[in-house]
């Protein structure tokens, strides 16, 4: 299924289950299908919606390469408008978490609760920009049909040492999967959007708000991008937030600790919030 954004871009989305709506928001490098195992679990209790951000997928569908992450926030609004959702629970990872935080700032009444994995702290903007610029350079330097250098640049940032060891033969396969499912131009567009959205004036205009919704923050103990101690410094932004640190996990909790993430999320939504 597809929905159309306000600037006439068609983005793919999927639905499963019934009940209170839960919208999953992707990280930079994954498509909506990456949530499949979690959707199977969560859709027993909730109506689960997954979608692709613009420029995710082989077809470049971004209507231009220079935009900021507020464009993703608008796209999310278009999705929930298309589905007629007065309110929803948002679940995000990494960039997806950032999009949800920004959405909650602009449309507080529509956000019932948030589950955020790998959230960020804007006080470290310079560092995030440095990291993502490195990824962008590696992406642009990767040979045709071989994203191994790009994969080598970003994988150590998102996985724990233990996981990297387990996956040590997998880098070429991961690179091949990226090349099959994403376009370089699309990855580059979203990387640039992320880099540019850490600029001081953008942060001042868009990201100085509180998140009023109850929020479960899940952070890997060995999250390279935003170590838990760094995220704790941003706790002011989440007055109804709870931070749980997952021992031994890297940034990509969705992969490294999927079952634990699902358990924490369902406990939060079903037990703590009484949502069904």
């Amino acid at each position, binding site marked *: 299924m597809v929905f159309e954004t306000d600037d006439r871009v068609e983005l793919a989305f999927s639905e499963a289950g019934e009940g209170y709506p839960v919208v999953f928001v992707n990280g930079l490098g994954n498509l909506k299908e990456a949530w499949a195992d979690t959707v199977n679990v969560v859709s027993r209790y909730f109506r689960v919606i997954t979608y692709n951000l613009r420029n995710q997928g082989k077809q470049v569908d971004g209507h231009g390469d220079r935009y900021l992450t507020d464009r993703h926030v608008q796209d999310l609004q278009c999705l929930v408008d298309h589905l007629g959702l007065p309110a929803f629970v948002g679940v995000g990872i990494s960039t997806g978490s950032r999009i949800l935080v920004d959405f909650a700032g602009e449309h507080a009444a529509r956000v019932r609760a948030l589950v955020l994995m790998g959230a960020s702290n804007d*006080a*470290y*903007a*310079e*560092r995030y920009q*440095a*990291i993502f*610029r*490195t990824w962008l*350079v*590696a992406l642009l*330097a*990767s*040979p045709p049909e071989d994203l*191994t*250098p790009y994969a*080598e*640049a970003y*994988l*150590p940032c998102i996985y724990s*040492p*233990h996981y*990297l*060891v387990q996956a*040590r033969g997998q880098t070429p396969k991961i690179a091949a999967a990226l090349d099959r499912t994403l376009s370089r131009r699309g990855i580059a567009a979203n990387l640039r959007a992320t880099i540019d959205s850490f600029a001081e004036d953008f942060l001042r205009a868009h990201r100085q708000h509180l998140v009023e919704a109850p929020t479960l923050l899940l952070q890997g103990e*060995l999250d*390279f991008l*935003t*170590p838990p*101690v*760094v995220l704790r410094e941003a706790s002011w932004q989440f007055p109804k937030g709870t931070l749980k640190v997952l021992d031994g996990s890297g940034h990509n909790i969705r992969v490294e600790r999927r079952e634990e993430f699902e358990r924490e999320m369902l406990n939060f939504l079903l037990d703590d919030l009484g949502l069904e």
Partner: protein
Amino acid sequence: MDFSRWNFKVEGEGTPILFINGHFQSRSSWDPTSQDLARFFKVVTFEFPNQGESPTDASFDTIRRYAEFARAFLDYLKLDPGDVIVHGYSFGGNVVRCLSQDLGVKFRVIIYGGIPSLRLAPFQIRRFTTWLEILDSCGFRTFASNVLLQVFSPGFVARYPHHFETMLGEYCRYYERRPEAVRALILAMRNAFQTPSPPPERYGEPVYVIGADSDLLLPMTYVEEYGREIGALEIIRLPGGHATRIEQHAELAEVIERIAERHESWVAPHGV
């Protein structure tokens, strides 16, 4: 080896403290720490081949080569290792480990910094393979950015972006035109972790281990494991990232001074 024109510095008087560089470290990067300690001790800093301003030698691609170089350098300075308090940081820690465990050199005290057990080999090999891939495919500047973002704590990079850029510029100045030197340094570390089933480490001298609580290159948990494995007298946790000599140079100097004072009257069992 002719050390007479080599890049090294000896300052101060007293119990000798020898600093052994991390991977891409220059001699002068120890200056804030060494100048502090030189008030009370004889502090020795130097560079290996392939580091800083020192010549390139691609044959230095094993830790053992660097350890033998360090041993020869101590002979040149006429320093008895049994009198020396040595601090080996990261790559330098691996050199000290080789000196101690493979070459049988006995120091007065060993202070390891940012070093894991050899049992962490799969992770370390993976890391250095990644470094080589990025160096070969993406150019030196991207490689250096990638490394420095791991070396420095998030807070340091975020709060001192100009210092980060300065370090990046320094790395490029030393190494951009000689990737073979960088390659040799990386290969040396990767090779060090390729010994299957390394034997237990045994130390006759006191050993200390220093780690940092925001170390992204080598999380503190691995440093603590190593410290327990080798029976370290003390496992010291400093704030900040992997590059303690930059982020916490005053604290590092204090720690080393404290350790040195504790062992100043201890005499190494020479010949053991």
